């Protein structure tokens, strides 16, 4: 079970005065159960990239294979693919439309062809997973707070039980507490159900603490691809393209440059703390 992108390129508005090359010869392999963060500046092609993965956008050239099958094949069931590769868009709460939260979450499973009973069960499970407060199950989605709306919207995708879950900027517009809760939730889902998660973000801090692999997009192609500590080692280059490494990276590099024998590759606050304690605690 894997997703393979083979020389994928995509150009917006072909043939008009406004051609934009959004993806430029992207080759990627995404294995089952990975937790990936895709980072890039606005316009680097990260959102375009992930929309290819469930067939919402068709590549101008190149192919994508899901579990070994070419998703651009004429008889490939792309509707089925979309239920396998779930996608939570930016500001997903803007897509809520039903009269109650519960009905809205049921929309996806119903489209999958499940009967009402099964759909209800799926919706219930999904809402439990995102820790949506039970007393609001029958509330109108338009009356909820921002964080709750987002949970409801994410539940709407999870209810389809995708094998791969893509989240495009799931924390945009949330306060720090809401952000940590959503990201924690995603981590928990990954650890418990073993699904592949692809997290699109422009915030290094968000991603560094949660993901196992980072893909940095720049001008429509991956610039770096690797474990967070490997990627952040290039923090100078990251800065050049308008991204910043997590603040601890700077701190650790500064300490290292001052002659303290810390490991400059610590990426999370916890790791940095351990390192600093190790070096300074000995004194």
């Amino acid at each position: 079970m894997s997703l393979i992108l083979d020389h994928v390129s995509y150009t917006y508005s072909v043939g008009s005065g406004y051609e934009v090359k959004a993806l430029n010869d992207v080759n990627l392999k995404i294995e089952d159960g990975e937790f990936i963060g895709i980072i890039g500046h606005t316009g680097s092609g990260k959102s375009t990239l992930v929309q290819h993965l469930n067939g919402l956008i068709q590549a101008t050239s190149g192919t994508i294979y899901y579990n070994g099958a070419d998703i651009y094949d004429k008889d490939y069931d792309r509707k089925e693919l979309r239920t396998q590769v779930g996608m939570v868009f930016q500001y997903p709460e803007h897509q809520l439309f039903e009269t109650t939260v519960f009905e809205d979450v049921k929309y996806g499973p119903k489209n999958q062809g499940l009967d009402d009973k099964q759909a209800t069960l799926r919706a219930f499970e999904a809402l439990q997973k995102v820790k949506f407060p039970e007393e609001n199950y029958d509330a109108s989605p338009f009356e909820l707070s921002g964080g709750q709306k987002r949970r409801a919207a994410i539940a709407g995708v999870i209810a389809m039980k995708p094998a791969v879950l893509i989240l495009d900027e799931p924390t945009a517009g949330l306060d720090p507490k809401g952000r940590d809760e959503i990201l924690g939730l995603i981590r928990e889902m990954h650890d418990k159900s073993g699904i592949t998660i692809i997290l699109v973000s422009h915030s290094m801090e968000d991603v560094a603490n949660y993901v196992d692999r980072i893909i940095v997009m720049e001008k429509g192609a991956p610039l770096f691809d690797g474990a967070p500590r490997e990627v952040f080692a290039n923090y100078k280059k990251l800065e050049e393209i308008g991204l910043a490494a997590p603040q601890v990276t700077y701190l650790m590099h500064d300490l290292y440059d001052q002659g303290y024998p810390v490991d400059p590759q610590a990426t999370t606050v916890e790791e940095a703390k351990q390192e600093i304690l190790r070096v300074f605690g000995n004194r």
Partner: protein
Amino acid sequence: MLKDITLGQYYPVDSVVHRLDPRVKLFGTLMYVICLFVADHVAGFALMTVVLATVIFLSKVPFSYMVRGLKAIVLLLVIAGAFNLFLTPGEAAFTLWKISVSWAGIKSALLMVFRMTYLIIGTSIMTLTTTPNQLTDGLEKSLRLLNYIHVPVHEIAMMMSIALRFIPILIEETDKIMKAQMARGADFEKKGLVNKAKAMVPLLVPLFVSAFRRANDLALAMEARCYHGGEGRTKMKPLHYRRIDAVAYVAILFVFAASIAVAILY
């Protein structure tokens, strides 16, 4: 997908026509339309063809772009042409089975098709070379006089520019919501009217909600910046006539006079 829809269809190149003051272009288009309806002789057509060709050449917009607008009215052209052709009474030119076609019919059908085609191409030159914002600015300034009879010119222009500004935003929003619902298994290509209408609900409800939310935000933002209508308001890019605009006015009036002269002479 939906992003390919162009409304207001501005074609971004730098040309003499693009740089003209929008008021000149509005006036020119108006004169052009009048000329088109004055012309009813080959000589008049020839004059308009020369004028149109010159402007198209000067605008640097590919000809294929202009013709694109015609696609939408092909059916209308055919029907209008046919009605004029067959239903105009007069001396029969030839008879097909029971239907006779008169000389007058042929003439009026040709006139009709010619006028409509030139009308579409001519007016699309204006929209292709003028951004919607320039256009509303130009309209606002040209119609200033109407203020004296209490027509809220500024408010109308403001509504127009907001509406125009929102078109691409709403198209983008539609595209986004459509994709989001498709990711949840929605099928917008269902067969049957009832099914189609049902499939639209998950698209239209969020779209309306978002349109109202945006309108609300915009109103708030405008009020926060003390917007209170057109009185005493200055422009970021005020319209100023330049030399080239004067030249264009003279050219327009010259063409207008010429076409009147042609109409009188022939």
